């Protein structure tokens, strides 16, 4: 038993690190692109807002696994071959970008238009209004659903195992392939995912109370 743990735990640990790396890359890149897209959706002229709207609707209507296969097999056709790992990360990030864009759009639109008026009235430029007036308030609305989206990204990262990337899920399966005792290993993996995501939702709750500057 101890020998078994010594043999398998480092392997699972490697898998966990891959899961965290994939999730981290996806979350970080989609945060930047998603917020930009969200701002574009709200404030962009039609030739900015419209393509983003189409992008977001198409991605959100596509099963994640289909998107992953499309990018893994599709990109090489146009002469780009990043390999499975990068392609899978790109697919997950593209998908997450659409969700983050919608969250950012909702957060920005929840700010009363009077705030924009007041910012204009004291002579703030568009960028200054975003920076000092809109964004500090929108952050409060943005964070809770965004942290949910982060947890979704961690869960979604399990799909990279289907592209042959040895993340926590695939590592677990490979261990099972040797031991033929699936239940404990699957439960162990589930517990690991649970630990990551549950701490995220705890963090979300704490953040919510920290940003409660408006008594509602």
């Amino acid at each position, binding site marked *: 038993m101890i020998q078994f743990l010594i043999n398998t735990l480092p392997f699972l640990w490697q898998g966990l690190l891959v899961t965290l790396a994939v999730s981290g890359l996806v979350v970080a890149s989609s945060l930047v692109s998603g917020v930009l897209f969200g701002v574009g959706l709200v404030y962009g002229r039609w030739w900015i807002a419209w393509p983003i709207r189409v992008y977001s609707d198409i991605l959100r209507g596509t099963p994640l*696994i289909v998107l992953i296969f499309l990018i893994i*097999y599709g990109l090489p056709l146009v002469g780009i071959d990043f390999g499975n790992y990068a392609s899978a990360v790109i697919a997950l990030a593209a998908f997450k970008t659409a969700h983050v864009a919608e969250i950012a759009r909702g957060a920005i639109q929840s700010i009363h238009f009077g705030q924009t008026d007041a910012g204009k009235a004291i002579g703030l430029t568009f960028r200054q209004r975003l920076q000092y007036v809109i964004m500090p308030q929108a952050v409060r609305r943005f964070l809770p659903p965004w942290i949910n989206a982060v947890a979704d990204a961690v869960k979604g990262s399990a799909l990279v195992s289907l592209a042959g990337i040895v993340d926590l899920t695939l590592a677990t*399966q490979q261990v099972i392939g040797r031991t033929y005792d699936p239940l404990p290993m699957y439960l162990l993996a589930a517990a690991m995912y649970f630990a990551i995501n549950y701490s995220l939702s705890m963090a979300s709750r704490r953040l919510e109370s920290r940003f409660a500057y408006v008594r509602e």
Partner: protein
Amino acid sequence: MAYHFNFNFVWRYADKLYWGLVLSLEIALVSILIGMVIGLALALAYTGGGRLTKTAVSAYVEFIRNVPLLLLVYLVFYGIPSAGGFAYDAKTSFVATLAIYSGAYLVEVFRAGLDAIPKGLVDAGKAIGLTPWQRFLYVRAPMMFRIVLPSLSNVYVSLFKDTSLAYVIAVPELTYGANWIKTNTFRVIEVWLVVWPMYLVTCYALIYGLRILERRFSLVRR
């Protein structure tokens, strides 16, 4: 060196995709129906239950919501039978997984729905002498279903997309069909270029259709 698209093989096996799509929709429907029963029962148990019930329901919800669906699929199909010494076919296993999965989301949906019913309405029910069961049947339930209908539509659409995971345990739904054609014809990208719009169009058709349904049941008539 341009790639030469060839969709002929895809069309030859189009029936696999068609029946795959039908099965996807069917799996999503059966799953959400069972999930609704689970969700409603647990929401009622939670609302009216003691501390232990509340903890148990929360544990179920939190566990399911924080674990990847793919892992749940494996857990139910490979894990549980290995310990119990019994077996079930892949489709049953997947429907059960999706039902348990959607149930966890629907508990929250129904709980929010029950909370959103104005207290005055229940009081009005009491005032005209309805029993608790009658109040549920004629006042709370109809109100709640109208309130939760938009969320139910969302869950159904996302379950439909989630059925794509059934291919990993060889349930012959749409993504499995795609993979089958892929392995047998090697027309990889063509298959995905056909299957992708199939998902997309179905998704938006569902969203559009369910909107109409929601409007039919809306409490505000225009």
